[in-house]
């Protein structure tokens, strides 16, 4: 293992231990309830950039994958009372299958067509779920949380830990892809698909692979949301806001490195949380829009791009 990897895994372990300690030491549920949303956005943004960042295929269907994750959990819980772990694993599997199907159908198209197809996907799936009586239809469905498992004292704290674990998992996967042949292949096809194909890169297969991994992670991130809110309805589970926010987080953070979407999700996620509490939940959409415009104009490579440029500047001065 390289020195960099050792550092990464030590950091990840510290993070998880800190999260576990927090759930034991802080008894107030609210901080966990609020921070859960940010963790959820980190997973979604990291997952999004595997396809959207590394391969350059802009997916507007985050909410479709997220919502499918939510409803996989709802269905399993209602039908079999499956525990949380099974709900998440099943959601990941469904997400992978959905990613595979969508990828195979649409990734032959380049650029904008793929994006349009993913918007259509959201609408089709949302409409289907809205008309699916068993999971509550348009009215939504109330869910009664089962009793919490030791060592956690409250269900929200447990969900917080589970989502933190998924953050680590998502980042580890994104980081692996970035540093491996898969990442180099995706970067090559992002730069020039024809040249990549003629250099031996199986472009379609790699794009579908990225779509499968990205889809599985997004669905997995959505699975605990039903238990988190104890309620699910199609118009919030498939809310286009997820797609827009996640896209903005990834672009503002920067997509060239896995840390970009993480930084973007923390920054925007907490700003949104703060604005929603202090002013109103409508203002945060406005702020999102303004920040996105500012970054696209002033820093198209995102925060990661700014940091890299700053670093190069400093080393350049020394030389």
């Amino acid at each position, binding site marked *: 293992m390289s020195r960099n990897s050792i550092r990464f895994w030590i950091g990840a372990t510290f993070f998880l231990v800190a999260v576990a300690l927090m759930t034991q030491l802080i008894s107030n549920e609210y901080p966990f309830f609020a921070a859960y949303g940010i963790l959820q956005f980190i997973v979604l943004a990291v997952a999004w950039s595997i396809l959207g960042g590394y391969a350059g295929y802009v997916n507007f269907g985050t909410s479709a994958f997220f919502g499918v994750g939510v409803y996989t959990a709802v269905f399993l819980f209602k039908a079999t009372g499956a525990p949380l772990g099974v709900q998440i694993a099943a959601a990941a599997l469904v997400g992978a299958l959905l990613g595979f199907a969508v990828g195979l159908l649409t990734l032959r198209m380049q650029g904008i067509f793929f994006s349009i197809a993913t918007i259509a996907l959201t609408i089709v799936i949302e409409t289907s779920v809205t008309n699916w009586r068993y999971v509550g239809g348009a009215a939504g469905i109330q869910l009664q949380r089962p009793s919490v498992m030791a060592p956690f004292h409250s269900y929200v704290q447990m969900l917080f830990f589970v989502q933190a674990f998924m953050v680590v998992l998502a980042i580890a996967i994104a980081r692996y892809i970035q540093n491996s*042949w898969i990442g180099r*292949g995706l*970067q090559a096809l992002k730069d020039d698909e*024809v040249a990549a*194909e*003629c*250099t*031996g*890169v*199986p472009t379609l297969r790699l794009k579908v692979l990225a779509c499968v991994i990205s889809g599985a992670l997004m669905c997995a991130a959505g699975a605990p949301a039903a238990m988190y809110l104890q309620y699910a309805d199609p118009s919030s589970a498939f809310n286009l806001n997820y797609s827009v926010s996640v896209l903005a987080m990834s672009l503002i953070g920067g997509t060239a490195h896995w840390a970009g979407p993480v930084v973007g999700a923390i920054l925007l996620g907490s700003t949104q949380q703060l604005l929603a509490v202090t002013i109103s939940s409508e203002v945060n959409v406005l702020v999102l829009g303004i920040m996105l415009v500012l970054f696209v104009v002033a820093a198209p490579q995102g925060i990661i791009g700014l940091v890299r440029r700053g670093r190069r500047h400093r080393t350049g001065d020394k030389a």
Partner: protein
Amino acid sequence: MTPPELEVPLLRIDAVTKRFGGFVALDDVSVDIRPGERFGLIGPNGSGKTTLINCISGAMHAEVGTVVFRGEDITQLPAHIRTRRGIARSFQIPRPFKSMTVAENLMVALDFAAIGDDFVVAAQRRDTVMSILTQTGLAAKADLSTTGLSQVELRKMELARAMATHPKLLISDEAMAGLSSSEVDEVLDLLIKLGGQGITIIMIEHIMHAVMRFSERVMCLDAGRIIAIGTPDEVMANQRVQEAYLGT
């Protein structure tokens, strides 16, 4: 030594036809390329040269006819599989991976194409890349971004990236277009050097003295048909070739 006509061809193009709507870009083209041959492909603009090599490299698929490479029918194979089988190409307008350094461009080829019998172990990857870059005169640029390269360097980089796929057949699509005469000689020397290493090369070019110096055999296309094939001198002396180029 086996006489050339009994040798198994490296590449056999058999009755290939390619249409774009009503336009016939290639019309019943058949030709055999021998192993180790330096083959020149000429013809006026729009005569089907690039379409032909697109059908060989897999960027396009022939509707009629077959492409056989080393005894295997590759007509329907996607481009990346053909690259792995040993067909590499450069592009008329260079297509570097812009977000990468020169060395990283070659790494992509090592990762994806040079697998199988020529598998390159991780530890040797950098050495392999550097030796190809040294051969192509780009060693000093290895860690620079491709956006900083000049035209001639980009052309060399394309050839170097193609070489990193360990090709048996290298197709050079107008690698010299728009270069100064000294740069043309540089690229030409490079191609001749590569040909000397046993790699079969198909060169598309408009610069006649380069074609004459390089090719053992030349084929001239016009409006999708072969109008002449033979030694460079024979083809140049051909009446129809002169008409196609000079007009009558």
